[in-house]
């Protein structure tokens, strides 16, 4: 009997060193942790239960000399983050470079199946050289099996990816279909084709970091949502995001004890909107002040900065924020900001996270660049997302809400539940100057000036919209937190269903 236990312990030891001590050291030298170490950082102490430790790759199909290594290059299992269940897979770069073979894929699929059956979020830690060429088409099949499951799980359970090493070719599509992507700076990259192929095809000379590093994907492509300068921070911040998310589309919201008053007045907000209409201000000051404990987790903070998205909590429960940012491009909507916000709105709607929309939008960004690249369809995405969302929707217009952009930004007409405006709000078809110039085409300069002032006093305010019921209440800025909390309270049991359909046809 003892012998059997000894043998068992020996097997575990073998499994745990993965690709061996030498490869582990090489991994550390690159600033990277091993698959199991990462799990240790990500999960609560001693909460990890490994599944499939003894799975072996299809060694008969190997042409390489190495014997099959236990686990087949991916560590899978379940555990807890701050007490909540989570399923996890973590690719092991020390084993066949983390390459994906059939059994490797099967392990991931098993985790995704378990997650779906039990409605538990999944986190994937990616560090893989790609498909295991030796396994040929079986590896490709493996990828697709994973993709299929990612798609079915989408909108049912939160799926989060962290890219902590290479992630190239077909491998990118699994993270791409999850809800959030984290990247570690300097040690990870993602691309469909690598620098060498790029060079042969387009003669562009790029390195991996520039082509697909964390900086590229958080500032240029918008593929990644978060990046941090080392893996430990990545994993710790992933925990922080996880704390904001529900377990599934049918679970309730998580609750965090909060040390903040629901009757907190914020006098400084009375001066947030500058008296000079053309001056910018930082919308994040409003977000932070409204949030419980001034805690705001911003998503995609370096991409399409003209719109701000992220999570706060009100009375301890998560709220999704979408806000125009006057500090960047005057807060206008363009292709990138529309795509960014649309996906976020849909995420929140999937998981019953109420939406707070803060509006200061002068309109859509004009220009051939925008039109040629399809702002019509991209802008429509955000409109579509807001219109189909059935979660509680509270909107606050702080300043400009002009033209079509007014409609898009969670307006009353798109089933906004409670729509507030500050006294500084200007809800109109366009700014006073532009409007006067169109209406009074032939007016001389002096007359035009008068018309502008006239238009301003008549239309650049929230009261016309309020008189039609498009605005439910005009509120003084200092009571914004109190009002917004009250609004979400009354909407707590909101029950709204869209008509049955196979699925909608969002303008992709």
């Amino acid at each position, binding site marked *: 009997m003892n012998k059997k236990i000894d043998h068992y312990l020996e097997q575990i030891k073998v499994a745990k060193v993965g690709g061996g001590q030498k490869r582990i050291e090489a991994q*550390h030298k*690159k600033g990277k942790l091993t698959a199991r170490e990462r799990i240790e950082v990500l999960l609560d*102490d001693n909460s990890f239960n490994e599944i499939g430790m003894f799975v072996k790759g299809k060694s008969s199909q190997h042409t390489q000399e190495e014997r099959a290594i236990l686990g087949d290059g991916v560590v899978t299992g379940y555990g807890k983050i701050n007490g909540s269940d989570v399923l996890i897979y973590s690719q092991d770069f020390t084993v066949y470079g983390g390459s994906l073979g059939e059994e490797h894929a099967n392990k991931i699929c098993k985790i995704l199946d378990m997650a779906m059956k039990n409605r538990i979020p999944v986190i994937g830690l990616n560090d893989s050289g790609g498909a295991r060429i030796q396994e040929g088409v079986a590896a490709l099949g493996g990828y697709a099996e994973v993709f299929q499951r990612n798609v079915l799980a989408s909108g049912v359970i939160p799926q989060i990816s962290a890219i902590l090493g290479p992630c190239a070719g077909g491998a990118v599509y699994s993270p791409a279909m999850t809800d959030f992507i984290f990247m570690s700076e*300097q040690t990870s990259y993602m691309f469909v084709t690598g620098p060498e192929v790029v060079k042969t095809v387009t003669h562009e000379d790029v390195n991996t970091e520039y082509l697909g590093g964390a900086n590229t994907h958080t500032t240029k492509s918008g593929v990644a949502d978060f990046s941090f*300068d080392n893996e*430990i*921070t990545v994993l710790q911040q992933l925990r922080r995001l996880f704390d904001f998310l529900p377990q599934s589309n049918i679970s309730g919201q998580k609750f965090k004890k909060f040390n903040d008053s629901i009757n907190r007045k914020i006098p400084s907000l009375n001066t947030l909107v500058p008296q000079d209409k053309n001056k910018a201000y930082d919308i994040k*000051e409003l977000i932070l002040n409204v949030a419980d404990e001034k805690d705001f987790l911003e998503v995609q903070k370096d991409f399409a900065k003209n719109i701000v998205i992220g999570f706060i909590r009100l009375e301890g429960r998560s709220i999704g924020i979408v806000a125009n940012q006057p500090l960047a491009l005057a807060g206008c909507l363009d292709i990138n900001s529309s795509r960014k916000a649309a996906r976020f709105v849909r995420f929140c709607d999937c998981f019953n996270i109420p939406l707070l929309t803060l509006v200061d939008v002068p309109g859509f960004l004009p220009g051939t660049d925008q039109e040629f690249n399809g702002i019509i369809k991209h802008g429509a995405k955000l409109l579509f997302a807001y219109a189909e969302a059935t979660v509680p929707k509270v909107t606050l217009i702080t300043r400009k809400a002009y033209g079509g952009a007014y409609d898009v930004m969670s307006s009353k007409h798109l089933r906004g539940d409670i729509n507030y405006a500050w006294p500084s709000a200007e809800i109109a078809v366009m700014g006073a100057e532009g409007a006067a110039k169109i209406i009074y085409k032939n007016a001389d300069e002096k007359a035009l000036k008068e018309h502008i002032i006239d238009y301003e006093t008549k239309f650049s305010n929230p009261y016309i919209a309020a008189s039609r019921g498009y605005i439910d209440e005009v509120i003084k800025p200092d009571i914004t937190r109190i009002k917004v909390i009250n609004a979400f309270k009354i909407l707590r049991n909101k029950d709204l269903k869209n008509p049955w359909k196979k699925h909608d046809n969002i303008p992709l």
Partner: protein
Amino acid sequence: MIKKVLIANRGEIAIRIAKSCKKLGIKTVGVFSKDDSASLHLTYCDESYLLGDDPLKGSYLNTEKLIEISKKYSVDAIHPGYGFLSENSGFVKKLNKEKIIFIGPSYKAIELMGDKIESKKIAKKAGVNCIPGYEHAIKNVREGLNEAKKIGYPVMIKASAGGGGKGMRIARDKNEFEELLTAAKNEALNAFGDDRVFIEKYIEKPRHIEMQILADNHGNMIWLGERECSIQRRHQKIIEEAPSSFIDNITRVKMGEQAISLAREVNYSSAGTVEFVVDQKQNFYFLEMNTRLQVEHPVTELVTGIDLVEEMIHIADNKKLKIKQNDVKVQGWAFESRLCAESPKKNFLPSAGRLVNINYPVGDIRVDNGYQSGGEVSIYYDSLLAKIISKGKDRNDALSKMQRALRDVAVEGIETNIDFLMDIYKKEAFAKGEINTNFITETYDNGYEGKIDNKKEQESIILLAISYHINYFYSVNTDIKNISKNWVVSWRYDEFEININSIKNNFISIMLNNSLKEFSYQIDHINKMIQVYINEKKIKGRVNNHKNLLKVFFNGAETNINIFRKNTYQLYSILPKENINNKQKNILSPMPGKVTKVLVKEKDKVQEGDSLLILDAMKMENIIKSDFNGVIKEILVKENQSVSADEMLIAFA
């Protein structure tokens, strides 16, 4: 009879004056520049009017407009506050012509005391001590020795053409005089092409002590005791106290009497201050007279119980001083701290912008503030945000009240000197009153760094950080059993292991360095302040959370802390540190300005703290120092180039 006062100022002093007017039942008129149209001081005035769009010349310095408003709205008198038009004799003359009362001295007194040379002559005539010196160029060694003997050692030999310390020597006795005289002459010749030098008494460890006086239009004059203002940075006061811990009553009376005698010489009326420099033997010498209300007047008010603004108004109203010299009693002790929008770590570079949040102390403390949360700090005006003034029964009492009050200050949006102020107050030399005008440059020879002073302070910081950190885990976990027991607090050179025994609500019991610590905590997330109660003691600090890093501010110390679960920390230690934080190293412009000098070249090897270039901003020369060790890859700016805030100046390899 003064029934309506226009306050030709802004910020805290305008508010301060408005408060006294209100007390006297006088109506107030506030004025503002375009940028100031939402300023706090206007909410304290009964009426307010726009002066003009320009921040200075067209507004607060616009005498025509001030007079126009005064006439239009039947203003009886104008209080100028300090700065702006407070010592502008031309303005007073204009007001006289328009029959508008100026709450301050006569234009003649302002004129006489405003002239550096003239005021010294008058002071001498009035029997006020002036710094002994020989105003002629020294012809030869013998003459020099003679004059030095008359003045008394140590003496300072100064180049006539001087500046920047060039051609300056201090001779402590006659034996070294000749050698130093020659050296000074040579240096002056080399530096300025002019070898003329003169000598004057050198004051060692000079203290700045000033005498407050009040005088009416009827020849009544009193002195209200002294203020010591030796704590200065960039020749500007930041901490003042009354009385001085240094001079005795004999000196005090002499100083008071000389101040009065000077005031009498110029027929002074209103409040005024005579400034002296005081040497280590309590010899005091006239510096200048300030013919206005001073920033630091509240310390005198708190120890004498006299409202100086009220007295100024009565005097301007031609009333007789009710207070006699014998009535003036100095009781207790008072300190004033100037909370300024500036960065002590960047050589007191001014900071401007939106004041997102500011929290002031309450309770047994006087706060004269000019701003509140949501205010705008402009680059055009004084960086003074607020004055915090404490009163105690003695110096120690006032000092500890001040320290407690400063811990309640929290500012978000701009940088301030709050931590620097706290750091000064905790210095032993300060507590003992061993101060002089070089205190800051001598105490902070590397500049203020916010260093942790001792083990006790370090422990307090750990408790603050741990409480903040654990609080998060406590509030997200439904079951506290999920919270890790073993943690490591780490910073640059140090680490501490912490084992948690128990957490119950906001009570935590831990083992830190093998000793049991049981404490409770309270967090104010809005002001980012945290309080820990341990063994009946209260530790109060501020914590900012940035990703995984906690920035803790406590009693003048500032430090970055990382808290890891123990297993995570072990893994963190494995990772090579150069992979962590290997961001591109660049030097950005901290504010808009003009590059006046580039001190380094490309490929230079520099150390953290080395000076890289000089930036002229906000009328001040600011030295931009390196934040890193490294080699300069590229200098992206040229001399005389204008730069905007956050513009890249220098890139490192």
